């Protein structure tokens, strides 16, 4: 069978039609079926809420972004450092890697109240929850990536009398970067999730707090607008990381 290849117009047009048709169904079909607006507002109503309440939404988005960004940096930096320690100390790795993986199986929703209990209601517990969500994938991926160098490559470095630092910088680190960036891209969206989960449990501000409060107050339009803004934040974070990765690869190509 000959595979039918889609044209560029189809490749870009079809997803737009797909999304548009679903939005249209939501806009006209849902109210026609008698679902009340305080349960499920129409897309047009959500957009209207953005226009009227943008100041309130933005005021609450800033703390969430701040927590997510700090959590992203903290979690990923600690994960990379620990991965480096694990690579150069196999005993430490054997002792603590399983514990770390076991810790990762605790659902973040179950862990969040404990972290709030320990660290209080400030910004710190939200940063820690966001950091935890970034930490594990990056630790696992970076540890694996740093160990990707083949026996021949390590022997080549030995014959060239390369120092440990040179072997790390010229061989192990470049081998690990694709995996590191893969987990950074995942972290870019999960750090927003972490911040919002933290805000659910103990906060008066932030997108997470807005989501909880507007749910209890039947402010469906505001709820949907906040959810949409949270999703957009994740997309922006993701795009930023992808852009950094692109710049990094360009630099690497020049310097080797």
């Amino acid at each position, binding site marked *: 069978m000959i595979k039918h290849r889609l044209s560029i117009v189809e490749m870009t047009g079809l997803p737009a039609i797909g999304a548009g048709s679903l939005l249209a169904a939501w806009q006209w079909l849902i109210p026609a079926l008698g679902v009340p607006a305080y349960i499920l507002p129409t897309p047009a109503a959500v957009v209207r809420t953005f226009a009227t309440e943008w100041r309130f939404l933005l005021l609450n988005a800033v703390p969430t972004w701040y927590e997510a960004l700090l959590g992203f940096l903290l979690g990923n930096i600690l994960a990379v450092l620990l991965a480096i320690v694990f690579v150069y100390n196999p005993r430490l790795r054997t002792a603590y890697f399983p514990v770390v993986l076991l810790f990762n199986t605790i659902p973040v929703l179950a862990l969040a109240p404990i972290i709030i209990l320990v660290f209080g209601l400030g910004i710190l517990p939200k940063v820690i929850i966001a950091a935890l969500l970034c930490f594990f994938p990056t630790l696992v991926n970076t540890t694996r990536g740093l160990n990707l160098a083949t026996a021949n490559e390590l022997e*080549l470095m030995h014959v060239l*009398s*390369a120092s440990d630092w040179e*072997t790390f910088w*010229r061989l192990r680190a470049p081998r690990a970067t694709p995996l590191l960036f893969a987990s950074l891209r995942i972290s870019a969206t999960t750090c927003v999730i972490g911040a919002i989960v933290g805000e659910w449990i103990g906060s008066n501000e932030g997108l997470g707090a807005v989501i909880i409060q507007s749910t209890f107050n039947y402010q469906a339009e505001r709820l949907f607008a906040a959810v949409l803004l949270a999703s957009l934040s994740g997309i922006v974070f993701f795009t930023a990381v992808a852009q950094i990765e692109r710049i990094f690869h360009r630099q690497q190509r020049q310097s080797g």
Partner: protein
Amino acid sequence: MGDTIAIEAEGLHLGYAGSTETVRVLSGVDLVVRKGEFLTILGPSGCGKSTFLRAVADLLPPVGGRLTVLGKTASDARRRREVAFVFQEATLLPWRTVRQNVELPLQVGKKSISRSVDSKPSHWLDLVGLSDLGSRYPHQLSGGQRQRVAIARALQCEPDILLMDEPFGALDEITRDRLNDELLAIWHRTGTTILFVTHSITEAIYLGGRVLVLAANPGRVQALIDLMPMKDDNGFCRRESPEVQETATHLRQLLRDGGA
């Protein structure tokens, strides 16, 4: 007399330290390799031919006996960048261009190596006939071209001894023949001592000034055969000549005896 010797092994035992005892791979090697010599090493699988090369490169410490490389230990020779290694796989770093791969020896080991190297990567790329492909990436090259880059990278170390572990083993026969000729030409121009491990009888005869035949189970030296009488002044011989055929038959017999 002493400074004409590149490698000297006396009662050399090689093996790997197991959990209870050391596994002997190659035993009782007595060998003197002169400077500038092209020695091919031939043997069945498991005879320890790669192991011997790895010991000279300081990738494996001897279990017993004595091994000197240019009058010192293998470790000291390695640290002075006097020994270079070409693996069976080209082992090029995929994120580096061809030129950047050849530059690698200039970028690492600066702290420990004491002597300076003043040749440029372009010189060695030129020598292996790849001066036009310097900005390509390894995945854009053929197997033969990748191996040429690996050779250029080894030569960038300006080694006194070049160790080659079945470098053309994975290539097709035509490419292999051509690379054999190029390697002989490089050997003439640089005067480097070359130890070349192969499982091809023809390659061993065509390249070597002498061929060291190893036997397996246990790994040991079976014969050391001088090939110079059948070579012309430039070290070349015709692959089809009767002497080469005769020597090939002889070597095949030796390998059969030493294989079991």
